[in-house]
């Protein structure tokens, strides 16, 4: 008897294998370059949704977590030339600590006030990085990729790494959603006071959600320095991350793990196509228009639409 969890793990491994297979094909390098961004957004949207979708706490500070991952990597590369797995783990842990910190904010701040605080956090951290010379300050810093990567090209290698990270993020989100933790988060999203009075340890669950969400956002940011080879505050803390992290789950549907995946793949692919065919500035315009459209027409995202068509 194969359980659904075993199926999910098998599917995850199949996706990773497919990623490696694609890498071995050595297609047009641009495909891997764009694919990396799409996969990175799968991680970001999935991570955001653990807090924003499951627990209902809207985080506008995604760039802060992503940049924490990226700058932790920059620091470790400059300091000890740490290998990529160490960068990813360390980037995740630093961002997880930051997540734990904003988790305590939920004690006093709810709704919009929490969101504003997370936005402020991103601004504060960006200012810190601008003034920290060791990691490049406002001028930024160049990063030299390690030589002799697998598949002969570092971006292709990073594409496979990001495939694995996306699988990891989705499996974690799926596990949380289907466990007692996910049910408790849904209860506190619906009504925090009632959840608390029904025995749900809301603070503990919120801290768990902010920490795991932070960890995965940091993980998404850690390979970033090797991907772009030049890190500066404006690109690491880009507003795009905040907007996309929120828009992708909203478009896909926030109540299930598959929603952010659908949203990220659709929206990030559209953005990549627009960047090549029309203009790189059109990205955010697309997000804006699509988001407004969805909020009006399908507030529960594509998943909600599918459910409505199937008649509940």
């Amino acid at each position: 008897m194969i359980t659904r969890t075993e199926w999910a793990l098998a599917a995850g491994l199949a996706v990773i294998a497919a990623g490696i297979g694609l890498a071995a094909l050595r297609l047009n390098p641009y495909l891997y370059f764009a694919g990396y961004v799409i996969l990175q957004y799968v991680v970001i949207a999935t991570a955001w949704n653990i807090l924003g979708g499951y627990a209902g706490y809207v985080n506008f500070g995604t760039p802060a977590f992503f940049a924490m991952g990226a700058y932790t990597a920059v620091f470790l590369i400059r300091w000890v030339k740490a290998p990529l797995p160490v960068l990813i783990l360390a980037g995740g842990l630093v961002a997880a600590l930051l997540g734990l910190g904003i988790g305590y904010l939920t004690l006093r701040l709810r709704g919009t006030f929490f969101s504003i605080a997370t936005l402020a956090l991103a601004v504060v951290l960006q200012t810190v990085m601008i003034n920290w010379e060791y990691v490049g300050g406002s001028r930024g810093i160049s990063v030299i990729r390690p030589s002799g990567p697998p598949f002969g090209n570092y971006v292709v290698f990073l594409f496979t790494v990001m495939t694995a990270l996306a699988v990891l993020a989705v499996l974690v989100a799926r596990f949380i959603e289907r466990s007692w933790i996910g049910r408790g988060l849904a209860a506190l999203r619906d009504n925090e006071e009632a959840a608390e009075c029904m025995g749900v340890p809301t603070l503990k669950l919120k801290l768990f959600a902010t920490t795991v969400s932070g960890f995965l956002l940091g993980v998404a940011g850690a390979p970033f320095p090797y991907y772009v080879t030049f890190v500066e505050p404006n690109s690491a803390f880009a507003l795009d991350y905040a907007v996309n992290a929120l828009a992708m789950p909203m478009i896909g549907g926030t109540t299930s793990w598959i929603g952010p995946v659908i949203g990220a793949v659709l929206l990030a692919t559209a953005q990549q196509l627009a960047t090549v065919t029309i203009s790189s500035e059109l990205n955010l315009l697309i997000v804006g228009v699509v988001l407004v459209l969805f909020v009006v027409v399908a507030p529960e995202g594509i998943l909600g639409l599918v459910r409505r068509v199937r008649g509940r």
Partner: protein
Amino acid sequence: MAAALLEVDGVVKRFGGFTALNNVTIHVKQGERFGLIGPNGSGKTTLINCVSGSLRVDQGRIRFAGTDVTTLPPHRRTQLGIARSFQIPKPFRSMTVLENLGIPLEYAGHARGHDGAAEAADILREIGLEAKAHLRPAGLTQIEMRKLELARAMAARPKLLISDEAMAGLSSAEVDDILTILFRLNAQGITIIMIEHIMRAVMRFSERIVVLDAGERIAEGTPEEIVRNPAVEKAYLGE
């Protein structure tokens, strides 16, 4: 004489300069049907919030089943056996009625790990909501919503059930319906505190009643003693 299940001793709760509860003491015995009444704004719901843990008291102590719960967060108190319904129903809107019950069953009713669905279905049958098990709260009527509040509180497997105005706005037949449920729960050994404005219901239900007025306890006694008490009449009707 049964031992006290809930002891609220000298509780003071202030909001800024306003004293919502001033040195309130109530003891509720194991298995008792206890009524808490008072005019609007007298502090009934504040007192319940202090007992359930949504508010922290400024002074005084609250003991439940021999444990000092004064500083415990609400979810710990629920796990110890204090459950409440809300005056304004607060259902989990994204979940079905059955799933609503799953939360307390899993988190407070010690059903974690095994299937709580059968247990939830039993509670719904007892309360008379089994036909609505797979609806979302948005599809419920007022009385069904109140019943869901009670059912969800029951799913926490409480020793003490606090019913905060479960009958406000209901028709006379519906009030009887809720009363029957509460009597039945009490017969199963659950201590019940009823907060209610519908005098007919409180007087019929309670063995003992405490009256609050402007944050102070002004009277205590059997329903017969309370109706004859001049201080209570004054609090409700003025001089």
